[in-house]
């Protein structure tokens, strides 16, 4: 009896050890514990080493006066501003080039992706060359190319290319008249918003009517009329409350007006042309993924090639296009940090560059910069995932 008891208990113990569930739980717990300990010791090590080497740490530096200038700022910034503000200035510059870059890259990508599938030999070969050349050259090289191409091909300030006596192009940038708002300008702004809302409502109404009666409504012509007409009417009724400050050549360069710096133009061109080539391939793949039968069915129903593409093919292709498109958007945002090579004052150049060097607080500053790129990437992919769910195939 006693012997049997012993066998049973050893069987229990051994079955406990050999239980795959227990074993996997145990090994996972060990893995997590080791990871936590690893992270903890890295942090502890860093803090201890910083202290031992007498290197300043903490985030107090963010309130200290920066003392250096930044070439382009979307918010008020001067040398007397704080290091914390250099962070915001850099972040906004990164966002500016990323958002506009994404918009242009998407347009380029769709145009060339569709063009590559064109039956017209010349158009499809042009798209082919664009995609193959741009996709296969290193981005940094392209940035330098655009930068020096832009710089070398335009004249100095005194020989500026002049358009309508109000726009000037030279190697210091593109100078535009700057709008000055007077009382009443707010009404014009409101009228633009009203016009946009009206177009949206019109479009909904037109679609409903088409569903119900089959009659089409010329939405596009009306939208243009409303978008431009309404603000113009309000503009003149309020007595032209917007005037312009024109750039003027004084001393070394044009003073006044709005300036678009060449670094921005070069970076924007390089990023959007490069990413556009990848998007073109994604769009082409998406369209090819839609079965030929869909197009043929559409033709059979009497739709012309344009509406077939717009109403039948692309909505289905989007399901294939959106996920890889998201990673191209993320790439573009991250690649914008190459700006540092051509002096565009983005986050990496201003904050993780100059500010880092003046304060020497590499751990904090790089931590903040990493957090920004991570947040931007996660936000972009959350937005795109939301859109993906909207266009995804709804199975009934």
């Amino acid at each position, binding site marked *: 009896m006693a012997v049997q008891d012993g066998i049973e208990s050893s069987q229990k113990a051994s079955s406990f050890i050999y239980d795959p569930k227990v074993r996997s739980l145990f090994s996972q717990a060990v893995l997590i514990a080791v990871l936590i300990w690893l992270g903890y010791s890295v942090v502890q090590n860093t803090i201890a080493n910083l202290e*031992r080497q*007498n290197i300043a740490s903490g985030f107090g530096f963010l309130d200290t006066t920066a003392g250096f*200038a930044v070439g382009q700022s979307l918010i008020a910034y001067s040398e007397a501003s704080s290091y914390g503000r250099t962070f915001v200035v850099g972040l906004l510059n990164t966002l500016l080039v990323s958002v506009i870059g994404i918009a242009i890259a998407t347009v380029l990508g769709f145009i060339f992706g569709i063009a590559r599938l064109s039956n017209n030999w010349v158009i499809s070969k042009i798209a082919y060359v664009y995609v193959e050349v741009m996709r296969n050259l290193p981005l940094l090289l392209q940035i330098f190319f655009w930068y*020096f191409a832009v710089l070398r091909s335009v004249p100095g300030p005194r020989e500026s290319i002049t358009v309508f006596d109000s726009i000037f192009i030279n190697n*210091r940038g593109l100078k535009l008249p700057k709008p000055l708002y007077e009382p009443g300008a707010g009404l014009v702004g409101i009228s633009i918003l009203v016009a946009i809302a009206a177009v949206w409502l019109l479009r909904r109404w037109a679609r409903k009517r088409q569903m119900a009666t089959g009659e089409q409504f010329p939405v596009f012509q009306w939208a243009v009329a409303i978008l431009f007409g309404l603000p113009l009417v309000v503009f003149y009724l309020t007595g032209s409350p917007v005037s312009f400050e024109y750039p003027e050549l004084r001393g070394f360069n044009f003073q006044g007006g709005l300036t678009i710096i060449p670094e921005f133009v070069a970076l924007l061109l390089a990023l959007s042309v490069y990413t556009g080539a990848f998007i073109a391939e994604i769009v082409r793949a998406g369209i090819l993924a839609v079965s030929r039968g869909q197009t043929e069915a559409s033709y059979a129903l009497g739709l012309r090639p344009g509406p077939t593409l717009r109403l039948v093919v692309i909505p289905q292709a989007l399901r294939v296009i959106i996920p890889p498109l998201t990673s191209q958007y993320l790439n573009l945002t991250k690649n914008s940090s190459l700006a540092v*090579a051509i002096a565009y*004052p983005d986050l990496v150049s201003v904050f993780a560059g*100059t500010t880092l*060097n003046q304060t020497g607080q*590499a751990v904090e500053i790089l931590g903040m910069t990493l957090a920004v790129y991570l947040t931007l990437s996660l936000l972009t992919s959350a937005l795109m995932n939301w859109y993906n769910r909207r266009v995804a195939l709804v199975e009934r």
Partner: protein
Amino acid sequence: MNKLVLGSAVAAALGLSAATASAATLDDVKAKGSIQCGVSQGLPGFSNTDDAGTWTGLDVDFCRAMAAAIFDDPEAVRYTPLSAKERFTALQSGEVDVLSRNTTWTMQRDTALGLNFAGVTYYDGQGFMVRRDLGVASALELSGASVCTNTGTTTELNVADYFRANDMPYEIVAFEKADEVVQAYDAGRCDVYTTDASGLYAQRLKLTNPDEHMVLPEIISKEPLGPVVRQGDDQWFNITKWVYFALVNAEELGVTAANVEEMKGSNNPAIKRLLGVEGAFGEAIGLENDWAARVIAHVGNYGEIFERNVGPDTPLGISRGLNALWSEGGIQYAPPIR
């Protein structure tokens, strides 16, 4: 299996941190057999590679002097080219043993970054370069100009201070690498190129037509440039400091690469102490007693290094000015070896 991999990763991480934690740089250097020296990415006269790919320049010669003092071999140096932005992190993290990269000695860098400046191998000041055809004669006429410079330098701060103090608007265009600044200035992106005056003379050589550009007379800042080491290793700090002092003392005492052997027989006790014939000064910093004699035999004294790399007979053509010995109207001065 997983645990094994993780375990070794942890051990590796701890091993790495242990290596950086050890303070005796001299022992590490001796074990490696060479000094890891942080230099610029290419500044003629200070640290630059020649046609054969060898590093030359005033800053490079300082590293070679240290190698000569430690190993009796000026070639026992490995160079790490660093951008202005990377340099301090590279030194702090132990990637380089000494930073000899035209670095300005400022209070913030000396105190808050955990670094020690060992001396001033070159007294510099910030200047401006412009195109001759602009017709500008003084920096005070630069109101509204576009200014090209390097990121992560004191230059960026000085130019901000100068234009603010004189109430002049300006546009800053800051690049990471010096070569890109020169290219952009050459392409006409900026009216003005600003950096340390020595750098202006050096970079001017890289322009398409160097003669079309001129350096303005104003010097707007004090830029004492010198070698830097980490805090917390006094022995290594002392070696760096005294290699520099030995170079200056040698010039003052008239000891050159050519006459160093002969000078060992000199009756002047100061020379005897410098060359290790009398006293045990080398031992006190962990080296052989003839450490300074080795330095001078291999790389020459301070004056020789200056003349060879940046002096009037070089393409840079910089006169001694502030960098002459104190006894000759300059401010290069070293404490005595005794």
